[in-house]
């Protein structure tokens, strides 16, 4: 294509990125733990907020550590669903801004800039289908715009976004990450790989990949 959309992205400054006024709830959406647990987590993260934070890089571990407090090894023959304490609110509807806030600060694997700054993710390219009801399936569609049409890291960027969203969003969300139409040579192949649940799960068990993803997520607030 003669003039590719995102080839020479005008690097946006952090302050230019769309944001919401309330910063508190930004990245702490998770399914386990009560409000108090959430608060403790927020506090901990505020204390140690640097991008080198081990804590930030091991949010999973953190969840597990906190989770230990709350329940023992589950009974295997439960008739009712074993319910972990959820947020009190039954309806916490998530919108595009929230998704954007979650992913805009992910670093690009190559440059010391974030996906938001490079306009790889844009709030207009995020679609959310959610009514806040946690008993219904919701959907998120994120369209990404890689900087070059043959970007070999498109799948890595997509993986980073997916890991971020999977960790942060409630389980009712089905996450779809696709390339914006016309932005990549191998669009269909990349999309297929990015949305293959099994491939993603296996990639997350690959130490090397996980290391790269952790670095990418390190800049998230």
């Amino acid at each position: 294509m003669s003039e590719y959309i995102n080839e020479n992205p005008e690097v946006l400054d952090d302050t230019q990125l769309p944001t919401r006024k309330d910063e508190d709830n930004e990245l702490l959406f998770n399914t386990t733990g009560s409000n108090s647990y959430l608060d403790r987590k927020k506090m901990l993260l505020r204390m140690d907020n640097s991008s080198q934070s081990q804590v930030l890089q091991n949010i999973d571990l953190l969840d597990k550590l906190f989770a230990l407090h709350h329940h023992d090894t589950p009974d295997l023959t439960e008739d009712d669903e074993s319910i972990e304490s959820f947020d009190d609110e039954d309806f916490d509807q998530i919108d595009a801004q929230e998704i954007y806030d979650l992913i805009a600060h992910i670093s690009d694997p190559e440059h010391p800039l974030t996906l938001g700054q490079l306009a790889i993710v844009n709030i207009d390219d995020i679609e959310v289908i959610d009514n806040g009801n946690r008993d219904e399936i919701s959907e998120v569609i994120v369209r990404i715009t890689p900087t070059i049409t043959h970007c070999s890291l498109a799948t890595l960027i997509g993986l980073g976004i997916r890991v971020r969203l999977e960790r942060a969003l409630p389980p009712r969300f089905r996450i779809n990450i696709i390339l914006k139409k016309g932005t990549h040579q191998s669009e269909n192949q990349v999309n297929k790989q990015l949305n293959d649940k099994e491939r993603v799960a296996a990639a997350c068990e690959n130490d090397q990949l996980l290391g790269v993803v952790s670095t990418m997520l390190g800049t998230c607030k």
Partner: protein
Amino acid sequence: MSALLREEDLNDFITPEVACIKPVSSKPSNGVDGELSVGKEPEKVEISLADCLACVGCITSSEEILLSRQNQDVFVKEWNEKKTEGYILSVSIAPQCRVSLSQYFGMGVLKFDQMFIRYLQEVWGARYVVGIQEGREESIKLMNEVADKGERKICSACPGFLMYCEKKQQDLLPLLIDVKSPMEITGHLLKDGNKEKMYHLSIMPCFDKKLESMRPESIGLVDCVITPKELVNLITPEQVDKYFATTKETIGMLEWEDAIQRVTPKWMNIDTSFKTNEGSSSGGFAWQYILHRRFQMSDNDNDNAYKIETVRGRNLDVTEFRLIDEEGKILVRSTQVFGFRNIQNLRRLVKDVKPRKLKRFIRKRPTANGNDNSISLSSSINNQDNNNTKVEEPVDFCKSDFLEVMACPRGCIAGGGNLKNGIKNGPDQDSDPNQDLNTVYMTSIPMTSIEPRHNLTLPSSQENVIVGVISHDLDDSNTIIKLQEEQKYGNKYKRKLYNPSSISETHNGDSKNTIEQPVQFTTW
């Protein structure tokens, strides 16, 4: 170029590789070991296929690039350059390729040889044209001696298998016989004995031989490897008519020997050049080993105290030769193992496995078709036919004293670069083209016997070979041979086996282009 490597052709045992599965871990290119090497502009590579055993997934992108640097177009370009610089052209051709090409042109092997030599001389100005038999004999003799010592027993002449071991099965490396392959030794023979500048082109049945020619210990021995598939692309239709026209006349031995006479270097053995030895069409290493061991027991061919028995393994690609004494006790086992599915079972050699129980799972197997040319060999075979009621001990790799391992099912005759069907005869549904080629190999190429050696012991420390130690008994021919052997094995003919950590050193020879990753996106 890539038109040659079509999926349909290479269907039996290889897989087209779009993007390397392990781009990072196996080949650190410009990053530190283990770092994700982020690509720059990917280099356009014509070949993305390799009929390599290693292409179960581990052929790396850098190897893909290397492969693309050896093909018929590269040969033409390079030879045209070297010609002007005063180089002479030597061509070596493997017997499997002679069989394949002769069938392709619809003629006998000897006739093809004669025509091929003429074609090479007139079109390309070749000075020397040789077969690889002399190189193979040297290789076999050395291999046998290394195997006799008991530690190393797997033949490493197949580059596909060799690379697979180096990348995926490093624990097999200590068992590999570290002697160079017939192709490499032929390179030595051509170049070492010669003062002039020489460009050596080799016609080989597979693409892995190209990678083998670029191994550090063999750089410069072979300048270019091309396969029959590529060769026929080089020959124009006019040249086919002029040089490879089929005529009714067959060719006599004298005429054939005469043709070879003119193109064999003086320092090489003209008697063996275009012949082949008994054994499999992949070189007969396993068979030659058992013959070697038999000769050690008794140098009398007619001695009935020692018999060689041929036993079929679990499938057509596994065959074992056993040296049996008068009481029927098995003294030596030498096994042929072809094909990736069987190579998998070599793991047993290094894993802690319980000894194979004789009591196998009984099940009915569909019977193979009757003719079994792959194991029909001339002289000294005591075949066990199917009606024999004797219960045979099953083939167990752990007990083998020698293993000839080839990546391609059916062996080198079925190599990925070999042509399967003749232009005259179309593909025949029922016959197995590889089987037919095998038959031609066994019956149409004159055979030679490899001179058995007297018991020579190689230096125990293979690294520190003292070159130039003169024995006082200079007229003792044994000692001279011993010296020469020590020199050869200790220096030139020894194969170096690489562990992945040192693999990054292997392809630094060509510093012109940095090795890039020609992938479109990272696959996980």
